[in-house]
């Protein structure tokens, strides 16, 4: 299947594990064009005028929700946010009924974030609007994975053959899973490293190299993607203290020096400065963290466009 033949029109975006290489490439190519719009003085284009997007967030989120909201608005769609911190179980209304309610209002896309793994799959089966998974538990966060791919490709030219190290709490990270699938599909070699208690058992069967020390994982790496450490994991007893984590697993300039001199530093945010990443690394020349945010917007614009319009030609006149 070539890029010319592939279409994402009407397709749910649930994860990168089940996405094909031509589909990923189509999204990345489209995102490159979208990025030009963000840099314009007047950003609004009429491409998605008359279309509606609902951000249905069951977990708090600032950057992903704002990114989707602006992505929709820059393309001319109507965007509504529904944020409910309680899970459907607590709230008393089932996820299916919440989705049916949103569907009945005639929306075209539901962007959903939910604490339960597989909730996006559930939504895709339950209702007709296109479902874009904005993070389902520890399962996947496909738009983060795609924006990370976009960033790597933009900075490094190509992904094939790169050594990418993903550092931190792999066990609970949807970002890690989407990155692992996406990077491997595009030909990168992926290493993961973190405390053994935060590495899923049998993770090597996903095709990655596994380390419980950061140093060997960093050695010669072209890209270092540092994950956020949720402090709740300490309360669950998965590591002793934040202090020890920072000492053993935190990425500081000395450790980063083990990677390639031009290694790209990434972080999905929000950062715990001084814990998983030192400020010197976060704000270094090598850091692409700010660029990731901008690219996230471009990737989400591309996705909204591709699932609704299907093609690759963008009408960019304001």
């Amino acid at each position, binding site marked *: 299947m070539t890029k010319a033949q592939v279409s994402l029109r009407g397709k749910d975006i649930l994860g990168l594990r089940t996405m094909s290489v031509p589909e990923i490439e189509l999204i990345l190519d489209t995102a490159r064009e979208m990025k030009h719009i963000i840099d314009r003085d007047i950003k609004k284009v009429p491409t998605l005028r008359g279309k509606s997007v609902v951000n249905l967030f069951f977990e708090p989120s600032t950057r992903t929700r704002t990114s989707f909201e602006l992505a929709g608005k820059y393309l001319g769609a109507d965007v509504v946010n529904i944020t409910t911190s309680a*899970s459907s179980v607590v709230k008393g209304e*089932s996820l299916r009924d919440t989705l049916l309610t949103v569907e009945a209002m005639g929306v075209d896309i539901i962007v959903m974030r939910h604490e*339960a*793994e*597989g909730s996006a799959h559930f939504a895709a089966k339950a209702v007709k609007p296109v479902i874009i998974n904005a993070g389902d538990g520890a399962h996947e966060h496909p738009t983060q994975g795609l924006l990370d791919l976009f960033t790597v490709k933009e900075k490094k030219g190509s992904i094939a053959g790169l050594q990418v190290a993903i550092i931190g709490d792999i066990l609970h990270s949807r970002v890690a899973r989407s990155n692992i699938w996406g990077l491997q599909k595009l030909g990168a070699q992926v290493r993961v490293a973190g405390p053994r208690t935060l590495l*899923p*058992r049998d993770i090597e*069967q996903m095709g990655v190299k596994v380390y419980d020390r950061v140093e060997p994982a960093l050695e010669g790496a072209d890209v270092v993607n540092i994950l956020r450490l949720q402090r709740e994991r300490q309360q669950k007893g998965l590591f002793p203290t934040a202090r020890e984590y920072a000492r053993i697993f935190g990425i500081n300039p000395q450790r980063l020096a083990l990677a390639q001199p031009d290694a790209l530093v990434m972080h999905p945010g929000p950062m715990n400065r001084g814990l998983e990443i030192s400020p010197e690394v976060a704000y270094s020349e090598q850091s692409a963290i700010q660029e990731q945010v901008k690219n996230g917007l471009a990737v989400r614009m591309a996705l909204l466009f591709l699932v609704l319009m299907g093609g690759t030609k963008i009408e960019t006149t304001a």
Partner: protein
Amino acid sequence: MKLLLKGGRIIDPAQNVDLVGDVLVQDGRIAKVGGQIDPGDAEVLEARGLVVAPGLIDLHTHLREPGLEAKEDIGSGTRAAAAGGFTTICCMPNTRPVIDNAVLVAGVTQRAGLEGAVNVRVIGALTKGQEGKELAEIGDMIAAGAVALSDDGHFVESARIFRTGLEYAGMFDGVVVSHAEDESLAGDGYMHEGAVSAALGLRGRPAVSEDIAVARDVMLAEYTGALLHIAHVSTLGAVEIIRQAKRRGVRVTAEVTPHHLTLTDEAVLGFDPAAKVHPPLRSGEHVEALLAGLKDGTLDVIATDHAPHAFEEKDVEFRYAPSGFAGLETALGVVLTELYHTGKFTLPELIDRMAAAPARVFGLEGGTLKPGAPADITLFDPNQEWRVDSSLFYTRGKCTPFAGKSLKGKAVATIVGGRVVMKNGEVRA
């Protein structure tokens, strides 16, 4: 009242019988087996091309009554049993209230006598409220007809309480049934821990949590000399522990479910709540070990763990769905399709695991076609092809990981105490 089953293949593993002939039933008991029997005034049921087997017995059914009738009740559950070819089912006590005293044992037994399509035997709770703290009135419940004791659904965390339960139940020759999963290891997991859980990000219930629990229970059974039955064995390690224990003469028996014998954790890949069960569906190496264990007799019994839930309970995100699903109406078809038609087991072996062995393990009447035995008989067509459509189930629990699956082999008639309670899928009770 006489009933003649004409010309079927009679398989009775308890007597080593496998022959083509007639079976005469009189006054609710088996009267005569084999050869050509003159029908006289008997009603005749044509059995040519069918297998005539002792009625299937399920040692692990959740009837959900009292208190959880949105999931199932005695009427719907026993009709599901009849449809699936089961003539006796043993119901678990994790109801509301928990069946933990003689009045409840007697009450469920009595209601089952009035409303049940098949025989129902009651398993009483091992501890009060299944809370794992104080022993329930085990002696009283056994006197009221309880066939075994179990806190099924929960592992008895305290080794001291479990030891006491074994010793106390042992006084009455009561079998203690263990749901063996160490909750401190498995408790917050949703599926088998392995490559699939790693990929899906779902917290795992590691196989070792079951191995540890089975090892502890087996050691306590050995120490006390009491009777122990391990419910729904699902791991390679547990099979090996039980195998060694049996060699040492420990009085332990074990069961395995059709789903653990035939499905792997890959059934969870689409996050279908129908694939959520405790213990979880495991990876291929475990399935292989279960098949080997069933073959060599380490695992004595195939039991369904029929665990129906209401639609709205299962129609949620995978994490929030209760574990378990209906099993009575698919068990025989799944077992025949995956274990018999694949050449792994013979029909006498499977009938042993589903009728003779369950009767032996709980000391129940039945499980054989010996003259004088209760006329509990299952007729099945090992070659009938059908597709699982859970909307046609008698059980209220329509959720099953076998939905849509094509199966080969189906119960054609279920006879309980000489009465035909199911014929061609139609339950008459």
